[in-house]
């Protein structure tokens, strides 16, 4: 299909013949895009004059599916949005549902959700930085990162049985409580991970090739970052100090001592540095949280009628039996108010929010996802203009575009 150039990028006058400009198709299947997205590039020699993104190759109607699956079923779809950190998506989705229902989570559940969110952040940043390293020629760095990602996958597998698509949260609670074995594995990870992180920083922070390829490339100013709706590490690398964990504390974040990592230069190297230091801060949160998990139930009380009661409650109390029956029957389920609300978390990639409209049933009337990858990819034509073809992979990598979340 013909791709008309965006008028926002009006650097070239289209009525003039531009014989010296090359048109290059980049993607949708290309090893350096990592995911399925397409760029049509106008090149002047090796310089990118204009980049026209063409997306939608992975559009699978997630928001439409959200209007026919109930709140607990839809969590499996959120896994497949940003599949690099599915735990964060699960927490965001059920956080939005719980805000709509007006549920207050038990503190044990809040702590466990905080821990898995931070582990997901470490896992996401490892992949993102690892991929930037891989694309700019640092293969060893990528292997270091993936080795630690395996450790996090092992933790998630022990926690909920799934390595990749976790679907760990439930409305008003979690699928399983945390076990001593998981705590042991997380402690082991907390002990071993800083060593790898040090190694990784020693490999790249002063690596001449890497620094030359990322410093001063894809610069995003602070004003432009806010104007173009950038959030998360990308905005923080440009000097925007916004972090929802501090500014709009959700879950148990107000109990922990951690810093918001920012940089001012706004280039690919700054984004790399912000992600590296955020991993250290995330690890600090995990270390504090894992030693202070409060005792008590993980799910909300039986009276709320949203989370499945334990088997003990089902077999020994009448409320438990009734709740189990009500929630398991296809024509029952729980009730939602005729209201709408928005809830956002600081996902590894930026602000991940869900706008949920309730219509009385346990199926969302509308489940809008505010995907950070989508907004960050719209920055790409602006960031790449004037850089060389080889800088595309550095900029694309540092924006951490996950096409499944981009297209939904």
């Amino acid at each position, binding site marked *: 299909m013909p791709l008309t150039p965006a008028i926002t990028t009006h650097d070239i006058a289209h009525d003039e013949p531009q014989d010296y400009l090359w048109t290059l198709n980049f993607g949708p299947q290309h090893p350096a895009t990592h995911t399925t997205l397409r760029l049509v590039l106008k090149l002047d020699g090796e310089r990118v004059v204009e980049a026209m993104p063409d997306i*939608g190759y992975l559009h699978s109607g997630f*928001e439409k599916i959200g209007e026919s699956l109930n709140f607990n079923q839809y969590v499996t779809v959120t896994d497949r949005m940003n599949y690099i950190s599915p735990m964060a998506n699960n927490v965001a989705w059920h956080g939005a549902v719980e805000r709509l229902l007006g549920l207050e989570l038990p503190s044990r559940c809040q702590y466990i959700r905080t821990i898995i969110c931070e582990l997901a952040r470490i896992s996401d940043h490892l992949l993102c930085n690892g991929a930037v390293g891989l694309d700019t020629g640092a293969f060893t760095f990528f292997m270091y990162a993936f080795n630690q990602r395996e450790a996090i996958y092992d933790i998630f597998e022990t926690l909920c049985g799934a390595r990749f698509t976790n679907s760990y949260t439930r409305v008003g609670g979690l699928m399983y409580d945390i076990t001593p074995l998981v705590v042991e594995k997380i402690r082991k990870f907390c002990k071993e991970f800083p060593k790898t992180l040090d190694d990784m920083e020693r490999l790249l922070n002063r690596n001449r090739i890497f620094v030359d390829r990322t410093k001063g490339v894809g610069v995003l100013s602070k004003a432009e970052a806010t104007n173009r709706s950038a959030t998360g590490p990308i905005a923080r690398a440009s000097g925007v100090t916004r972090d929802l964990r501090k500014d709009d504390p959700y879950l148990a974040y107000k109990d922990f001592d951690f810093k918001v990592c920012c940089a001012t230069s706004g280039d690919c190297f700054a984004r790399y540095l912000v992600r590296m230091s955020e991993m250290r801060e995330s690890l600090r949160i995990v270390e504090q949280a894992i030693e202070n998990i409060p005792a008590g139930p993980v799910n909300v009380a039986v009276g709320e009628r949203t989370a499945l009661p334990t088997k003990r409650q089902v077999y020994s109390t009448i409320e438990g039996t009734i709740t189990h029956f009500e929630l398991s029957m296809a024509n029952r389920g729980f009730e939602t108010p005729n209201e709408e609300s928005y809830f956002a978390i600081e996902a590894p990639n930026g602000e991940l929010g869900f*706008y949920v409209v309730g219509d009385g049933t346990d199926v969302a009337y509308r489940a809008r996802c505010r995907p950070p990858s989508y*907004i960050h990819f719209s920055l790409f034509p602006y960031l790449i203009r004037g850089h060389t073809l080889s800088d595309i992979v550095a900029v694309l990598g540092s924006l951490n575009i996950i096409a499944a979340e981009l297209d939904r």
Partner: protein
Amino acid sequence: MANQATVDLIHLVSSGAKVSEYAGQTRVVVPADVLFVVMERLKKQRGFDLLVDVTCVDYLHYRDATDRFGLVYLLASTESNERLTVRVFLNEPDLVVPSVVALWAGADWFERETWDMFGVTFSGHPDHRRILMPDDFTAFPLRKDYPLQGRGERHNFPVLGRAES
């Protein structure tokens, strides 16, 4: 929770704006014709410098709904962390609102997606095209009268050979 000064400002621009609150979030409903003025004043005078999201809800089958479409603009301030939801209700055949790309460049893709999924036109948008669906797609998939499994577009998709591509 939005500041009282923000609510006062909206009332100043549009006296008929309805303000409501749910789960700690303030929502204001403004008429479509004053939307741009309200947004401009919110950005310039109240410091809402971040457009978090633009989306739409189709209220076709919604209980007690009087309007067909409800646009949602989620605003935030990076300085004061104030949040505000601005709603605009639209009915067919008049599905046109002014684009806010002139105020926030980030609105570009949000508005394109809303057009793509719901068929709401944003007048003054610099690049008003479909974004996720193919350019030759005729329906608006997130409308409630569009079936979940589609209308057969998936099976009747034109397949391009190597020669025509």
